Structures are given as structure tokens and as C-alpha cells.
């Protein structure tokens, strides 16, 4: 679905979103969990960036941080988050709240749980529109109906009166998307938007997200554990492992020539028709309480050496292809 012209777009000078050196910790009874350790990436206007990785890699908490919704006891302890050049972390809570919905919006994994069960879809989307756009109720209602139609819900008048429990998973996710886009945000973050849906419905929702992105010109961060979903939908992909970004590259480049040993091993553990055997990654993800310094993949990496005890910096090894590794995998 990532059409070639989109992938070929040159890197623009001013990113819409710039996350730099983000560090985030959770103080727990067991100790300090270093959930994010210097996460840096950018999203250009209109771009679709995939944030991929396995459970606990920090992809969802990164999204929460951008939304200003880090749950307690999580705490950002360093770095910056800039939206259109504005430092979000410097904003008072009240102003950050104004940013949410009008400039950044989020779509969650389980639509039926993310919607308010006690309010109609209509009241939720009208409220979102009024808050984000500072418009009156009548105008918000017009906009809401129009948006519901745009997300492919036939009979929007009826949908406005329904509650979440009356909708199928696919319809609820469409409603959720309508609520997210009604405010006109230029950045939409979708956190595993299709993981709870069947593949045929997943395909519809992903197509819808791409159509909306093109039509509205918003950028999209697609968080997913499914490398296939990322490959088919994203211009660029950011791979995370244990709270660090290990690699970023244009989608095709990443799958054709993975450079970080983790990315490479992850791809070799994917089942697909015609593959002889899978090659699982030995070992387990490190404990993020007092993790060893340096590359967090080193303890499972067959290429690791003594220098991996110091965190490798991101280096550009190809056009817009970055890897944080001293011994990247060379394409053969």
C-alpha cells in the first residue's frame, strides 16, 4: 500500500515531529525500569512511520510520551519532543491538553474498550470536534456526520446514536478513527489499531488509514508488532528493542537489507510459506531494571564484542538508513 511516490519523497528540512534523546523511567518497588533509553526519531509532514518491535520494547510508551499521557509512575527524565518546532515538554499541562486532539490524536488497539461505553458515538465525536476546533455544537455535528461518512460508516445519522457495544470491532475502530481525525490533527498515532481485528477487517482499516492520511495530509505513526503490516503501510520503519532504537530505514530497504543484528534475526524468525526452518533468537530480552550499559541486544548477539558495552550511536549506512551497531550486517 505504500505507493512508490510517497516512499520517494525527499527528506524535508523541517520535521513535523522530532523526538530527541528521550529517556523515560518507571520507579517500581523492584527498582528503576529504564523503559526508554535515548530514543530519537523524526516524522515528516504527511509521512507514515512504522514503530515496530516486540513486547516491552517501548513502542507504545513512546507514543504515550508524545501524547503527554505517560501513566504513573512513568516519568520522562530527559530529551525533548518537538511538534512543529514547539517543545511540548515545556508546555504547562493545560496547553499540552489543547495540543491533543487538535494537533496530535491517537487511535488505540481495542476500539470497543477505548470508546466511552456510557456515551453515544455521536456525543464523543461532537465533543472531540468542539474541543479541538473551538466550534459550536451545530457545526461540530455537521463535521461529525461528514467525518463518519469519510471513515466508511454508512448511515452516519444512525451511528451517531449508537453505543460502542452495538458496533462490531471493525465499525468501532472506524468510529474511533473518526474521533481521532475530526479535530484536524496533523499527526495521528495509531497504536496496534488492527491487532484485535480479523485479517479481512484489518485490511479494510489499514486501507482507510492510508486513504485518510493522503486526503487530510496528516502524518501517521503506526505502532505494530506485525512486520508485514509495517512493510505494506509505512514509508519508513523504526525498529525498537528493549527501550532503544536499533535501526531506521525506508520500509523496502529495511526488509531487503536489514543492518542491525536484531532486525536481521527478527526477520529470520518470521514464519512464511516456503521457508525451511525458522531461526529463533537465542536468549531473552534483558531486565530493564539496571540493564548493562551499552547495546541492549549485545547479550543475545552473535556479532557482539567488547566495544558493545558502550552504546553505539546511530550512523547512516545508506540513504536514510540508520543503524545503532558497531558491527552491522552487510548485505550479501
Amino acid at each position, binding site marked *: 500500500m505504500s505507493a512508490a511516490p510517497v516512499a520517494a519523497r525527499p527528506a524535508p528540512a523541517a520535521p513535523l515531529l522530532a523526538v530527541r534523546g528521550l529517556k523515560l523511567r518507571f520507579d517500581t518497588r523492584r527498582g528503576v525500569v529504564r523503559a526508554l533509553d535515548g530514543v530519537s526519531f523524526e516524522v515528516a509532514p504527511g509521512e507514515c512511520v512504522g514503530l515496530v518491535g516486540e513486547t516491552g520494547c517501548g513502542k507504545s510508551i513512546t507514543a504515550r510520551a508524545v501524547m503527554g499521557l505517560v501513566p504513573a509512575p512513568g516519568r520522562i527524565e530527559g530529551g525533548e519532543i518537538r511538534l512543529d518546532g514547539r517543545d511540548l515538554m515545556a508546555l504547562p499541562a493545560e496547553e499540552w491538553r489543547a495540543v491533543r486532539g487538535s494537533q496530535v490524536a491517537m487511535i488505540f488497539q481495542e476500539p470497543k474498550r477505548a470508546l466511552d461505553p456510557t456515551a453515544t458515538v455521536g456525543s464523543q465525536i461532537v465533543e472531540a470536534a468542539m474541543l479541538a476546533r473551538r466550534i459550536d455544537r451545530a457545526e461540530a455535528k455537521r463535521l461529525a456526520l461528514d467525518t463518519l461518512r469519510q471513515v466508511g460508516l454508512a448511515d452516519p445519522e444512525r451511528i451517531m446514536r449508537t453505543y460502542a457495544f452495538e458496533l462490531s470491532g471493525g465499525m468501532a475502530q472506524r468510529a474511533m478513527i473518526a474521533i481521532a481525525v475530526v479535530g484536524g490533527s496533523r499527526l495521528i498515532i495509531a497504536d496496534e489499531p488492527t491487532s484485535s481485528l480479523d485479517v479481512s*477487517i484489518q485490511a479494510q482499516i489499514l486501507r482507510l488509514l492510508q486513504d485518510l492520511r493522503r486526503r487530510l495530509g496528516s502524518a501517521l505513526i503506526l505502532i505494530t508488532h506485525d512486520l508485514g503490516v509495517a512493510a505494506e503501510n509505512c514509508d519508513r520503519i523504526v525498529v525498537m528493542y528493549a527501550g532503544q532504537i536499533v535501526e531506521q530505514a525506508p520500509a523496502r530497504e529495511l526488509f531487503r537489507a536489514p543492518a542491525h543484528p536484531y532486525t536481521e534475526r527478527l526477520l529470520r*524468525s518470521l*514464519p512464511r510459506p516456503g521457508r525451511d526452518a525458522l531461526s529463533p533468537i537465542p536468549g531473552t530480552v534483558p531486565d530493564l531494571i539496571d540493564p548493562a550499559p551499552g547495546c541492549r541486544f549485545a547479550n543475545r548477539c552473535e556479532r557482539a564484542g567488547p566495544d558493545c558495552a558502550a552504546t553505539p550511536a546511530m550512523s547512516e549506512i545508506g540513504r536514510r538508513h540508520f543503524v545503532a551497531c558497531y558491527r552491522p550486517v552487510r548485505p550479501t
Partner: protein
Amino acid sequence: MSAATSRPTVEARNLSVRFRARGEAAWPWSKAGEVKAVENVSIAVPRGEMFGVAGESGCGKSTLARALLNLVAPSAGEVRIDGRAVAGMPALELRSSIQMVFQDPYNSLNPRRRVGDIVAESLVVHGRFDDRERAHRTLTMLEKVGLGAQHLERFPHEFSGGQRQRIAIARALILEPQFLVLDEPTSALDVSVQAMVLELIRQLRRDLDLGCIFISHDLNLLGFLTDRLAVMYLGRIVEMGPTKEIFAAPAHPYTVELIAATPSPYEEGREPRQPIEGEIPSNVNPPPGCPFHTRCRKRIGPICDSRLPELRWHEGRAVRCHLYDGPPAESGGAP
């Protein structure tokens, strides 16, 4: 029929499972509906084979799995293991020939029991061996799934999802069953952990000559793992045959859509296609005729809306679609 193969076989013959509908169709004042979970399904899986069942929510794949173990009673048809009906079989005998691994490794292990006891329990229940031999077999089985003596005294919460699924597999195999039913055993696991569990299942299948029925919604996984595949839609098998051939040239329009909708990082330059429209119909009131006609791109006419197609032979597999007019596929046949 399965007589063609002399190997022990687990068979479903014209199996149907229906439930009284709950939810919206079962208000006190409404007529109780019936969920047609599995409709007239016939499969035959010999020992040593890895058989896949694919489909989306509500297609009946999990109910089929449960019916194979007699965990739900069929409304029609029967399940036979090695020629014997499971319906009347004593529970202990049934359990020692077919076992199951469930989807969620966090809920399928008793949190209050130690791993050694969880794995050994079946031996105790079945009164097999003395304590010493049981302890020996439990340890051997744990080692087969990649765990060891140091894990015997631990509780399930001390293990990761992948390790718990290994424990569940050890528990299922301790009685040395001939058949293993796996209901989405890796869908709660990360890709790298899934890879380990899948490789373990493959190895155990070879070593123990297991007949496996692997239920999944993930076509990439089934395409990799299985020898034969049945694709289900709204309770019915719509296509069944050798996995390689189905992937090389899917015949049923639903199989085509399902494979196309499954995202893969390896299909560069694949034409982006319009996803299939509509939602899966209710299996309380399934559409008349072919259950897929409401969403089918290849619908050929009124026949699709009114007459249920039979399973027919087409290029080495059975297909339930009016597009194909081969000879009827014998129920329980081995395409």
C-alpha cells in the same frame, strides 16, 4: 475414506456443532437462535501429519478443535480416533490418545501448582507408573521441551509466555498421545518467541510421530508449518488440500482474499488490492446459498445466493464453490 491409509487417524465425519445463541438473539421475548458453529465438516488426519485449520473469528475452527477432543458434543456426525467413536470412549482412554494445547498460556496453567506437578498430573490421574518413574518421565519430558530440573519446583508465574507454552506442551505430551490439537498456541507470543515454540512443535512432531491439528488465523504461519490445510468460513470448510498447492494457486475466492489480506514483508511490488468488503455474517442467521456470496468478488449469479455448493475436487484439493464443477469430494477424503 481413511481406510486408504493404514496409519492411525483422527477423523471428523460430517461433524456439526450448534449452540443455543446467547446475546442479542436471546432476549427473553425473542426466539432463541442457534449458532451454527461447525457445519458438516469432515477431516481425516493421520499420525505424523501437520494439518492446519485456517479462518477468521466465528469460522468454527476452535469449536472443531474442541469437538475433536469431545470437549463439546456434536449435534450431528461424529469424531473417530483410529476407527473408534470418541463419543462413547472412556475419558482416560480418549485423553491418552489425543491432547490439546490452548491459546492463552497465562490462563491454561493452574497458578497454584508447581510445574513438576502440572506436568506429572496426567500420569497420576491415569495411575501410570510409580513415583520414581513418574518423576523420571516428567523430567525427561521437561527436557524435551527445553526446560530442566531447576524448573520442577517453580510456579507458572515465574515463567515467560513462551516457557509457559512449553510447559503446556509437556503436559499435553506426557501421556504419549498419538494426536495433538493446538489452538492458536502462539498467537499470544512475540515473533521471536513464537519461532522457538514453532520449531519445538515441529521437532516433537517428527520425534514422536504426532498427528497435529494446528488451528490459526495466521496464514503465513500455516503456510510455513503445515502439510495440509483446511480453510473454514462460517462453520464450513471452503477449501482443503496440500498446503503448498493451496498457496501456489488458491482456488476458493475466500482463500484468495485471505491470502491477499495477510500482510507480508516479503511481497515487494505486490499490487495493492482493494480489500474485501463487508463483515463476516452472523452464524446465527447465515446467508442462504454459499455462505461467502455476500462478500465474494467472483459471484457468478443467483445460484450463489440460493444453493450451497458441495465440496468438489479441483486440482488435487476439495473446494466448495460454484465456480468449480469437478466430481464431488467424498466426505472425509484425503485431498
